[in-house]
């Protein structure tokens, strides 16, 4: 394979894989938006909170799987508290009020996470080596980190699980009903509060997975919560209420961002990754205002 092409493929694949990591964060947004119509700005803080909890429990010498279970339990308790204290009194308020409340929650969780634990950088090792995939490197001359491949696999499993969770069983049906229409779901006897708590707990679980994977990449620290901003273009590209959209959107954004950074970056000055994803997403949006997989916007007067 010629060097040029190999390099391009390398950039493309690296982009696709990092896109998967964006979709991990975007998934958390989608889950909550689908079920409650709330754009949860605090998702980034939830990632930080989950990752910090997890890493600090690990540092206490707790077994890896036990630590995951404890962190998961903490996220579930957090979800129940959020539902009780914040969401329940705000039922039937305009969405912008709920959105602002999640920004408040964002501040609160950032303070809480760093207050209970601390604000130092914690190295996190979840047992996946961040080394090149040697056999691929030898056969095709393409350099890809094994870590990226593994996180893509984990993300895939998570998506399959969520898709299954949403499709099957009583809870899955209830979730879809609530996503369709809050009030209609309530009138047929679906406990809205319970469903919201479940959704927030699931988003907490996704945040934990995202936090663990990003945590090994970047170290667990405050900046991990900014990853959420990276996930926003993924979100509008894929559509706010589509799990598949979060994945496809992540792939498109990740790949085009990396390609743009490598080929376009040197021409117009570096550091373009902070906004180029937003631009790509906006170009898609002008053609399809509800995102690639979002529900068609039907307006009635």
């Amino acid at each position: 394979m010629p060097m040029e092409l190999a390099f391009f493929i390398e950039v493309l694949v690296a982009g696709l894989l990092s896109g998967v990591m964006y979709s991990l964060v975007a998934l958390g947004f989608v889950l909550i938006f689908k079920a409650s119509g709330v754009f949860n700005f605090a998702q980034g803080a939830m990632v930080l909170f989950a990752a910090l909890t997890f890493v600090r429990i690990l540092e206490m010498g707790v077994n890896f799987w036990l630590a995951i279970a404890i962190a998961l339990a903490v996220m579930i308790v957090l979800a129940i508290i959020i539902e009780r204290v914040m969401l329940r009194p705000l039922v039937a308020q305009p969405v912008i009020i709920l959105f602002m409340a999640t920004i408040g929650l964002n501040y609160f969780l950032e303070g809480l996470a760093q207050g209970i634990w601390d604000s130092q950088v914690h190295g996190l090792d979840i047992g996946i080596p961040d080394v090149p995939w040697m056999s691929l490197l030898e056969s095709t001359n393409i350099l890809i980190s094994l870590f990226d491949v593994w996180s893509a696999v984990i993300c895939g499993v998570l998506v399959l699980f969520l898709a299954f969770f949403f499709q099957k069983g009583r809870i899955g049906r209830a979730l879809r009903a609530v996503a369709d229409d809050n009030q209609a779901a309530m009138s047929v006897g679906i406990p809205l509060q319970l469903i919201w708590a479940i959704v927030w707990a699931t988003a907490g679980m996704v945040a934990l997975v995202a936090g663990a994977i990003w945590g090994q990449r970047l170290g667990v620290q405050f900046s991990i919560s900014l990853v959420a901003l990276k996930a926003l273009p993924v979100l509008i590209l894929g559509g706010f209420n589509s799990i598949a959209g979060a994945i496809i959107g992540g792939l498109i954004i990740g790949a085009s961002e990396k390609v743009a950074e490598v080929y376009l970056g040197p021409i117009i000055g570096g550091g373009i990754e902070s906004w180029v994803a937003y631009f790509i997403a906006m170009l898609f949006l002008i053609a399809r205002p509800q995102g690639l997989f979002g529900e068609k916007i039907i307006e009635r007067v």
Partner: protein
Amino acid sequence: MLYRETGQFKTSYKKDMAIFPIRQDRWAVVAMLIFVVVVVPLIATEHVIAGYLIPLLIWSIAAIGLNILTGYTGQLSLGHGAFMAVGAYAAYNLASRIPELPIILVFLLAGLIAAIFGVLVGSPSLRIKGFYLAVATLAAQFFVEWVFATFSWFVGGAASMVIDTPKMAVFGYQITSTLDNYYLILGFVVVGTLFAKNLVRSEIGRAWMAIRDMDVAAEVIGIQPLYTKLSAFAVSSFYGGVAGALYAFCYVKSVDFTAFDLFVSLKVLFMIIIGGMGSILGCFLGATFIVALPIILNELMHLFSGQIPSAMLSNIEHMIFGGLIIFFLIVEPHGLARLWMTAKEKLRLWPFPH
């Protein structure tokens, strides 16, 4: 007993259209003006004016801008910091490259440049709506930060990206002291508030509100959505641009893109939500709340500064800030302006409610 419009008859159309139809309101406004122009400089220390009042007034202008876009027209924007940054940099470049320009004209031109930028940012709003638009305005935020961080042309080729603003003079009078700055900003606030107050009750303001309440329905009754939305973006970013220029020239006295990051956009959004969306008075109340809250928290925290480490204090401050925001939204989702309205209704009947 005191606040009652009994006996105040509107006998002409002109009286019917007055901004403040109730006499007590007019007195209150005049009293407030006298207070901020005459009394405040007499009693407030320089530290209070420079540290609290000047930012309060500047944030009020910025909040009026965002309230026109989000509160009156219903277009959620997370890019207000970008408009402020464009205003600040435009003002710096105009003032340093063309020193002959009068400073007030510089600020107005900076507002105009920000308005042009705002129209560009707002142009997708015809197709993209709601949270999709909000995220799209984030693109503007990050793009502007990147532009000012990357191209040194905007700071005259200086190596450091933070640069001092040139001296200002109004009609030959050098603006040097804190009080001069205070009066300059106050002038902008008074004119800007009056303009905004009138704008939102005019034809264009009513069109904005119609678009906010339901844009399809507004289109059906003959309101042009493109013109209406873009004019809201233009006016909103004009206010943002002027506020940004004032912030750079009169408050921090330097131009620095990091002063207009995403958290500034969120801060202004907080102001209008807490103050009250779709209310000019709410902009001032919200700005006061958001400017005062960290100061009060800080003072309170100082009481404990001996016992608790400072990193912990800042975390607790974060938590209280976030918690108060949530608390406020739960207790009064329509903001402080609504509280004031309720109080006014009560006052009309006081002390003999039925």
